[in-house]
């Protein structure tokens, strides 16, 4: 009688956390499917499903490794966990003692349910330098919501307040295929089926554009101008929500003045979107409300990141689309409460706060406790006395994720000590001194808190990890204990017990239930009309109102009102450069099969999309003698990489879009790192966003030409 069982767990292959059912037979995974009883109703994406090919993947790291030979030579000796963890902990403690805690950097990549563990570890060490891509990824939105509204907002695709959105604006975001960031594709698409209008703002067509009422094909990097232009129309035509504006916002008159600088004619010139469309879209989203705004990471990877998002919040606010059913809502938490406390309860010391890289400049960036990666690597390159000495990374690839790959590599090589925890020998792990093998979510128990906060679920181990790989949570706890046991626990179970203590459940109990949620009538709307945030009503901001004019931005010396800023390199800001590099490059193209640098080694995903792809308009390509699927060089003054051209008519002929974070697991070396990785062309030397330190990934300049084959086969 063979042992076949079904394990209920949570998928961790992106931020989403779909409920999954895993069929396990004799210790081997036989099937993965969505859990029809979960909030995601049994739906999943290609990535989560294909993770069945991760547990036995031959590329998996199986043992802790120590470097022998030069850094990057890829020569390793196997060591035991104790030696590995002791070494890392000791190096952290020594560096802390010798150079101060800020000389230690803990880092992670995109959130996978353990953000708070990274934070807790950083706080345990006492360093202000927790490093992540937060400056270009979600943190800006979070901070902008916090300072403007006092609470993070999500589009209400659930209709729990009795209304679904009448208009949905998908702005730089393709929830239908990528990065859920707490809003799942299935909820979004269900809401879309009920919506009257869909407005898409994107330089290229998306999979929904043929269904959209309006497609605003804007020039990359001009989002703030478009939003301000819309506000110009809405305010001047009196289409704004007068009651909400009057009672619940601060600084409307100043905003009104500001938007006069952005009449539709001017905005049309800046954004390349026809004036009539701007006006039509503005009228539509203001009058056909409730309107939900699905705002994407695209607005954050910009030198105008903060103002892009400030403009969006103002647009939401003046149209009355805050806390109204079917608009932008702050979800109330489950019984487990404010899970962030797990990371935040260890108070940041003044020394740590002062030592945050970029903390002197990027005030909003550091509000989220993440220090600026570009600053960290620059200090390393320049031998700055306050530079990082020891870096411990978990699930991140700075060499692929951050701007200017060669500069990041130069910085990385200068570290005294680098440890990397990952599932695979990633391009970054190759340069480490110690590599830790991490278990997959299929092989781990865990607590998953990346959902829309109204939901929080358990990750339940289905099979044993390969070799000696251990779970993320175990690794963090073991490291934490060695550095300061008072903040950590004897077992991982105790960690989880503590993590969810406010719910009144133990980990074992929580595991059985599988999730906590607050949905339906349990969610309250119009919370600002109650004492929820402020006694007597209001928002948790300095003024108690939604700050169209931000007192916090003013305090920090930034523009308190949204404005447009031309990208650092563009046809208008650098016309001479444009002559040499006559195409606008957006360097962050997504696919449904990969998440940034992840999954190139999963056969079923790699066969869907084997090569790095750059979208190019057929006319543009034709003029250069490039055929569909030709390999081309994408080049600017900082370097060049090779990707495969794909003809795409849904782009402005002056724009090309290249995929991000490409590496080749099958030949992982320095040469292939620089072969197709578009971050060879990006830079952190040009002015970043002043408030968050965000780098520009979506609006650069380049030229494209065919790769000439050496010997034709």
């Amino acid at each position, binding site marked *: 009688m063979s042992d076949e069982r079904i394990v209920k767990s949570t998928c961790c292959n992106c931020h989403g956390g779909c409920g999954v059912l895993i069929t396990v037979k004799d210790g081997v*995974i*036989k*099937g*993965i*499917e*969505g859990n*029809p009883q979960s909030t995601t109703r*049994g*739906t*999943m*994406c*290609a990535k989560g*499903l*294909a993770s*069945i*090919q991760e*547990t*036995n*993947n031959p590329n998996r790291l199986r043992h802790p490794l120590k470097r022998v030979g030069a850094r990057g030579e890829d020569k390793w000796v196997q060591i035991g966990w104790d030696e590995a963890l002791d070494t890392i902990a000791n190096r952290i403690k020594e560096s802390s003692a010798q150079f101060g805690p800020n000389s230690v950097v803990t880092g992670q990549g995109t959130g996978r349910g353990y953000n708070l563990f990274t934070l807790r570890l950083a706080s345990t060490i006492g360093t202000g330098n927790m490093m992540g891509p937060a400056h270009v990824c979600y943190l800006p939105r979070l901070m902008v919501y916090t300072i403007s509204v006092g609470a993070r907002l999500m589009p209400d695709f659930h209709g729990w307040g009795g209304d679904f959105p009448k208009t949905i604006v998908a702005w730089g975001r393709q929830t*239908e*295929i990528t990065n859920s960031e707490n809003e*799942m*594709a*299935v909820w979004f*698409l*269900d809401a879309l*089926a009920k919506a009257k209008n869909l407005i898409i703002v994107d330089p290229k*067509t998306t*999979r*929904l*554009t*043929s*269904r*959209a009422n309006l*497609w605003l094909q804007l020039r990359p990097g001009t989002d703030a101008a478009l939003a301000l232009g819309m506000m110009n129309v809405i305010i001047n035509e009196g289409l704004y929500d007068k009651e909400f504006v009057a009672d619940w916002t601060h600084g409307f008159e100043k905003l009104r003045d500001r938007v006069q600088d952005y009449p539709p004619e001017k905005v049309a010139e800046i954004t390349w979107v026809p004036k009539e469309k701007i006006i039509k879209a503005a009228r539509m989203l203001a009058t056909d409300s409730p309107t939900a705004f699905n705002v994407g990471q695209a607005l954050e990877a910009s030198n105008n990141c903060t103002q892009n998002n400030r403009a969006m919040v103002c647009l939401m606010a003046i149209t009355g689309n805050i806390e109204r059913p079917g608009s932008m809502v702050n979800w109330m938490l489950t019984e487990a409460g404010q899970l962030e406390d797990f990371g935040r309860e260890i108070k940041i010391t003044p020394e740590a706060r002062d030592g945050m890289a970029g903390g002197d400049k990027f005030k909003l960036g550091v509000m989220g406790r993440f220090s600026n990666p570009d600053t960290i690597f620059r200090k390393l390159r320049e031998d700055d006395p306050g530079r990082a000495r020891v870096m411990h990374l978990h699930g991140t690839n700075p060499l692929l994720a951050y701007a200017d790959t060669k500069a990041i590599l130069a910085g990385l090589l200068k570290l005294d000590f680098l440890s990397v925890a990952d599932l695979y020998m990633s391009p970054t792990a190759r340069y480490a001194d110690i590599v830790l093998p991490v278990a997959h979510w299929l092989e781990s128990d865990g607590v998953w808190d990346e959902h829309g906060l109204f939901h929080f679920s358990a990750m339940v181990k289905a099979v044993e990890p390969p070799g000696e790989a251990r779970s993320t949570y175990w690794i963090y706890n073991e490291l934490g204990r060695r550095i300061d046991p008072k903040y950590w626990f004897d077992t991982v179970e105790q960690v989880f017990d503590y993590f969810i203590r406010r719910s009144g459940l133990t980990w074992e109990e929580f595991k059985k239930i599988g999730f906590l949620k607050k949905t339906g009538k349990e969610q309250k709307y119009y919370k600002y009309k109650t004492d929820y945030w402020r006694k007597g009503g209001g928002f948790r901001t300095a003024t108690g109102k939604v700050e169209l004019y931000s007192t916090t931005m003013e305090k920090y010396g930034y523009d308190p009102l949204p404005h447009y800023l031309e990208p650092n390199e563009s046809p208008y800001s650098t016309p001479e450069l444009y002559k040499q590099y006559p195409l606008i490059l957006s360097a962050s193209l997504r696919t*449904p*099969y990969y998440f940034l640098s992840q999954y190139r080694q999963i*056969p*079923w*995903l790699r*066969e*869907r999309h*084997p090569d790095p792809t750059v979208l190019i308009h057929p006319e543009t390509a034709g003029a250069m003698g490039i055929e569909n699927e030709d390999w081309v060089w994408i080049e600017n003054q900082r370097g060049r990489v090779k990707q495969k051209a794909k003809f*795409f*008519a*849904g782009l402005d002929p002056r724009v090309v879009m290249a995929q991000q974070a490409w590496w080749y697991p099958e030949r992982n070396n320095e040469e292939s790192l620089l072969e197709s990785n578009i971050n060879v062309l990006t830079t952190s030397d040009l002015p970043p966003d002043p408030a968050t330190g965000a780098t520009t990934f979506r609006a650069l300049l380049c030229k494209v030409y065919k790769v000439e084959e050496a010997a034709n086969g």
Partner: protein
Amino acid sequence: MDKKAIFFDKSKCVGCQACIIACKIKHHASPHPVAPPEGDPKGLSPINVHEYGPVIKGDRVFMYYQPLACMHCQDAPCLQACPETAIYRDEETDVVLVDRERCIGCKFCLWACPYGAPHFDDQGKMVKCDMCVDRLRQGKPTACEAVCVASAIMVRAPEEIAKIQAGKAADRVMKEIPD
């Protein structure tokens, strides 16, 4: 158990291809892919998603994704074309199935099928969508239907599907394709 028919709705599909992976899991039940036939880079996928566009005509954007597995046709040309009578109809559900023992991999079914539904595995035997007939018998949705975020795949009684299809007349589809 009722007879079933399947509808693939291209007005809803977003081309995420989760259905392809779900189908592979269901049919191969192994972490490793079945070796793809003769140079076909996409591997063996009983369900496929065809991409069309984007084509821009003035203000209109034409783009769609058409998921397509097997239509389990009433007058199945594959069934009629098979020289080994290896393709048959399940009496209970009306699903068209293939007997791998009898299949000789001659591909006559492939050339008869307007939808390209037959695929051939590394032993040369025909594999195609079986409408997850074992799941249907348990009252569950098919693997592709269950996983679809866009609700673009529907398995229902044939009369229901016919009604849905009538509502999305083929003519309208033809009109959408630009000249």
